[in-house]
């Protein structure tokens, strides 16, 4: 069932003369036709997970333990040639800044056609037809003309549509979306998320790993969600149960700190202190210094992700 | 004693830190510091006067007495080079100093106020810039006189528009920063905005430019002296020494090689520093 399987992934960054763990022992499965949310605050390691899966880590970072499997392919063991074949065909990614994926020197049409020809056996005319169809699919008006336009001629929302068109051009099995709508207005965000859901997940059965800090986005589009804190998954489960019955104190605090509908005025609950830096992560449960339920054991014992009776997974001694 | 050892250790650590941030700036600065120290104190340790002639040893090759040889009058070349640096550095410092102060002030005003002020300041700068630098300097020195102060002034005139343009450009960037707008909203005066908020954040490219222009000033001084419009004999100038040595290239190649090398080393020092400053003055690093 699972398309993408991340097993005990640990990724380190070299900084200040030492290797520091950005992601520690993270495991999850992404299934066919689902959107899995990876949610957390800045610095929690969610983007590092994405870049580790894509094997697009910066030169000062390395996967130090664990494996990532795309069905039968071990991505952590693949060499650069294999990875290049996989990226863009079976495995695709879109970024917060769509310009990352676009080359400002070439027309949009050129870039879509190039990607198509690289991975599929198409001649120029066929590729052009496919490109046109793709642009129409992602909702670009006057696609014929837009094919000859350069990236700078597009708004942020339009560029993200193009990036999406390129990302899905070869029917990837897995799409990794790193904060794809964070830089966009809400009405455009809704359109793009809607596109991802309809075009990819429902029509093609793609598995989408959606990295976001926006709990609203998670609630609206994800099927399951992993909550990350300081490099670890602290809670994992289907969206409905996590939002209605958050178990981990961090998830609870995060949800309660949202200023939102229904609760007018009044004090927002907030989490004291701040996210620890990579260099000084506390021992034991990494959340314990900020946790209102912290016990003595939390300081020493590292809680493991355990499955509760309801099928939710949580890493907290309160549920051991 | 202990305190001093700590101080030394800290100094070493600090130096190593700088070296790690930018090797090029560190090496460049070291060259410049060493050259400056040697030339500033040359009268204290050199056994020779720059114009003292040794008639027993004209055109002497390097020996233990004359480490880098002598010229056709038997003057010690090492000593003359070290004295020559005084003129080079004086011209470099003086011209860059004047050019920097005037150029930064003009560029800041032009970039900050924009509009008519910008045009009033920058159009004359463009005219000045359109003039070939060397022609301008030659004309000025030829016209006004061949003293070192005229040379400084002439090079400074060439530098003002360069500094003004760089400063204006970086001012235009900084002036739109949010913190400038914030200070303006709090009622900060034009002067405060320019001096407290814009100048410190916009000066980095100017300083990089300054370092590179120092090197070019040394070249300009040498060139002027070489063609006879700069330092006059018997004063020791690197350019003049080069020119004098030309006639003796066959018999005494060190007469041209030593001052030539000396010019290159100084220019290299300033260029390395300029390149390194680009890394050091990156504002993202600031605040340590």
């Amino acid at each position, binding site marked *: 069932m699972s398309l993408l399987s991340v097993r005990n992934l640990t990724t380190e960054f070299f900084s200040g003369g030492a290797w520091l763990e950005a992601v520690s022992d993270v495991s999850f499965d992404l299934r066919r036709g689902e959107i899995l949310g990876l949610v957390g*605050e800045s610095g929690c390691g969610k983007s590092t997970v994405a870049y580790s899966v894509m094997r697009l880590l910066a030169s000062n970072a390395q996967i130090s333990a664990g494996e990532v499997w795309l069905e039968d392919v071990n991505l952590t063991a693949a060499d650069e040639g294999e990875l290049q074949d996989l990226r863009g065909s079976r495995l695709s990614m879109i970024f917060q800044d769509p310009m990352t994926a676009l080359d400002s020197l070439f027309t949009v049409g050129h870039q879509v056609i190039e990607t198509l020809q690289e991975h599929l056996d198409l001649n120029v005319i066929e590729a052009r037809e496919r490109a046109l169809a793709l642009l129409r699919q992602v*909702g670009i*008006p006057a696609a014929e003309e837009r094919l000859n336009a350069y990236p700078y001629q597009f*708004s942020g929302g339009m560029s993200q549509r193009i990036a999406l068109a390129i990302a899905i051009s070869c029917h990837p099995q897995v799409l990794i979306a790193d904060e794809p709508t964070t830089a966009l*207005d*809400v*009405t*455009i*965000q*809704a*359109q793009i*998320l*809607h596109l991802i859901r309809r075009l990819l997940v429902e029509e093609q059965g793609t598995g989408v790993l959606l990295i976001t*800090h926006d*709990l*609203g986005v*998670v*609630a*609206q*589009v994800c099927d399951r969600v992993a909550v990350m804190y300081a490099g670890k998954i602290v809670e994992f489960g289907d*969206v*409905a149960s996590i*939002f*209605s019955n958050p178990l981990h104190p961090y998830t609870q*605090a*995060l*949800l309660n*700190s*949202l*200023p*939102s*509908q229904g*609760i*007018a*005025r009044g*004090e*927002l*609950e*907030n*989490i004291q202190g*701040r*996210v620890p830096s990579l260099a000084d992560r506390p021992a034991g449960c990494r959340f314990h210094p900020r946790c209102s339920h912290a016990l003595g054991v939390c300081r020493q014992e590292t809680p493991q992700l355990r499955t509760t009776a309801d099928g939710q997974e949580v890493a907290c001694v309160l549920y051991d | 004693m202990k305190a001093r050892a700590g101080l030394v250790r800290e100094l070493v650590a600090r130096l190593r830190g700088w070296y790690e941030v930018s090797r090029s700036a560190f090496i460049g600065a070291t060259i410049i510091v060493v050259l400056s120290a040697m030339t500033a104190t040359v009268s204290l340790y050199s056994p020779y006067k720059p114009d003292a002639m040794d008639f027993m040893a004209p055109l002497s090759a390097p020996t233990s007495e004359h480490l880098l040889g002598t010229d056709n009058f038997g003057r010690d070349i090492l000593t003359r080079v070290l004295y020559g640096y005084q003129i080079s550095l004086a011209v470099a410092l003086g011209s860059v100093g004047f050019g920097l102060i005037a150029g930064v002030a003009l560029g800041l005003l032009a970039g900050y106020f924009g509009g008519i002020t910008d045009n009033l300041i920058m159009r004359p700068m463009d005219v000045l810039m359109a003039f070939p630098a060397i022609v301008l300097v030659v004309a000025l020195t030829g016209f006004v006189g061949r003293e070192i102060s005229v040379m400084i002034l002439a090079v400074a005139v060439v530098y003002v528009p360069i500094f003004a343009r760089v400063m204006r450009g970086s001012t235009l960037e900084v002036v739109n920063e*949010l*913190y400038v*707008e*914030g*200070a*303006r*909203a*709090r*009622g*900060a*005066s034009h002067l*405060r905005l320019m001096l407290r*908020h814009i100048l*410190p*954040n916009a000066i980095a490219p100017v300083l990089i430019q300054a370092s590179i222009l120092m090197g070019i000033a040394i070249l300009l001084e040498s060139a002027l002296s070489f063609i006879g419009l700069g330092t006059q004999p018997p004063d020791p100038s690197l350019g003049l020494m080069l020119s004098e040595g030309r006639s003796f290239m066959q018999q005494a190649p060190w007469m041209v090689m030593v001052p030539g090398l000396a010019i290159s080393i100084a220019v290299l020092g300033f260029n390395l520093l300029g390149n390194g400053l680009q890394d050091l003055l990156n*504002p993202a690093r*600031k*605040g340590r």
Partner: protein
Amino acid sequence: MSSMTNGAQPLLRARGLSKYFPLESGLLASLRGAKAAVKAVESVSLDVYAGQTLAIVGESGSGKSTLGRLLLRLLQPTTGQVLYKGANIFDMRRTELRAFRRQAQIILQDPYASLNPRMRIGSIIREPLDIYAEGSKTARNKRVDVLLERVGLTSEHARAYPSELSGGQRQRVGIAAALALSPQIIIADEPTSSLDVSVQAQTLNLLSELQRDFNLTYVFITHDLGVVQHFSDRVAVMYLGKIVEEAATEELFAAPQHPYTQVLFSAIPTPDPSRRVDWELPQGEPPSPLDPPSGCHFHPRCPQMTAACSSIVPKLKATVPNRRVACLLYEQAATEPRPM
């Protein structure tokens, strides 16, 4: 909480405020006479009541930030007035303007770009006091310590540079600097949009405490409707330079009237999976403010568009007391089409 207009006095009022940015600048363009212009803000009128929070909501290109800057005279308007306690701030001379700047402060969006990287935190917070020469040097430094503590930092932070602080801490510094002169009104331009949710909650709590303690008036410019609902008394919704709807927060959220407000609200991802919206969204993107559609600017995207919408410019009119909306659906008597 509802309809607080009675009793409270408007502290700041905008009257027919417009700001057009000419597209071409330079000698040639000014000789040829102004041509195309971006109408960033178009005839905006609104009242900000003392001690309350007015939220200005809109997407990028709606002109909300430009409006905020006009309210503080950081930009000169093309037409219109801003009255602070009855006096037009654009007519103020030097001393009056200084007095106004003391009382009206700004908190800027990006805590990374809004602090001078080459000044220490202490100097940044002290700067307003220096500008107005408030008290002696030692008194100012004492005030800095008090302010730092008030916003949840310590006096040790005074010696730090902005780069040594986290985003949340920096935003506290921005708040402390805005508070230094004990202002009456603070315009906050997306003060929490670049912060993590838990830090955002801390910052919002701080801002509401300060409002209570100092009876501050806020104008909150934001695109985050969760923040709006939590924080504001009244809301003005902007689209392409115009206010399309204005109402008390509770009333607006209970029943948004303008079709754009409705679309905007439905596009907000609610953090509640049991209330999933099947997004039936307007096609296309907000049009360019360079070339806004005729009639109602929203009509090309409007699900309830009528034939008249492309020719008639709807006026912002009171539908019920204290509630204004600019939409033909709510105009009682059919308005005659006016020549454009």
